[in-house]
């Protein structure tokens, strides 16, 4: 019969697995009534390719399995300890998405702050220099300590004196 190949394909998988839709099942079963070759094939598949598995009993799970798993979990928990817990939390904190903008703005504030501070320091340094300059302008009386150290031979002093 011409369609036997097609039917044997269905027998090998979908049909014996109960996955064949109703229409195809009806078509196949009416073919089986007429075709002894396909009937023999179905029996062969059922007996030799499907049945050995169907009779396979479930093996009991060996008792040592849970013991081994429990031991590994306990060992992991012991070696992990509070430090690993802390690291986990820390990691969670750092990669926590909502913390990223907060962290970024903190960094920005830090940089902005340090730039501002630098500017102030520069200005203060300049102010200090200017102050010394003024002190030096006021001469030895205003800068008593400095005056002892400085000899009178500097160009500025020469200029004013």
């Amino acid at each position, binding site marked *: 019969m011409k369609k036997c190949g097609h039917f044997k394909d269905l027998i090998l*998988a979908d049909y014996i*697995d109960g996955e064949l839709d109703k229409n195809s099942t009806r078509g196949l079963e009416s073919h089986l009534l007429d075709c002894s070759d396909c009937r023999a094939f179905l029996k062969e598949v059922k007996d030799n*390719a499907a049945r050995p*598995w169907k009779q396979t009993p*479930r093996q009991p799970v*060996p008792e040592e*399995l849970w013991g081994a*798993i*429990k031991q590994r*979990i306990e060992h992991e928990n012991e070696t992990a300890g509070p430090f690993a817990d802390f690291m986990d939390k820390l990691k969670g904190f750092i990669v926590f998405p909502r913390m990223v903008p907060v962290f970024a703005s903190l960094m920005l504030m830090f940089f902005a702050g340090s730039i501002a501070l630098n500017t102030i320091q520069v200005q203060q340094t300049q102010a200090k220099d200017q102050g010394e300059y003024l002190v030096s302008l006021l001469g030895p009386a205003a800068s008593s300590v400095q005056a002892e150290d400085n000899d009178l031979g500097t160009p500025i002093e020469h200029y004013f004196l």
Partner: protein
Amino acid sequence: MEDIAKDTLIRASQGDVQAFEEVYKASSSFVYNVALRVVNNREDALEVAQEVFMIIYHKLKTFRFESSFKTWAYRITANHAINFAKKHSRAKTVPYEDAFGEGAVANEFEAKIDQEHHSRLVESLLAELNPDQRACVVLRDIQGLSYEEIARALNININTVRSRLKRSREKLLSLKKTIQEAGRS
């Protein structure tokens, strides 16, 4: 695999060992038996099952509870067992002649077979299949999963499930034919 209460899964995911033991009890028969048939050896099956449960224990923390725990556990088990079988392919321990050959009557399966002989038969038949085919046969014929469940567990499409099952069965049919012919001559 037995159903596991969501509450138990949540507690297990938080590291509660007692809750994890309940998860183990509900799923160990499936995990061990699939491993046993795919790697086809008791010691290796114990190793695979142990790894599978350690993976489940660790990954439960990131498990999304909207998806099915069963499907997820099927997938971990099948993948792990297949990979193990591919890496550690052993020499066949049971010669397939034992299954059909000398001493085995023509309609062996009709006869009452003692359990030991039957498990040797199963081992020797499985040894004829590659790990991918074995996994399909085990999930379908021994564990009774549907094509769709197998497809999801193995992350393959249903047509691949179908063709792997077909090829496995063809292999077994031709194996039997070969041995019977050799027996006759």
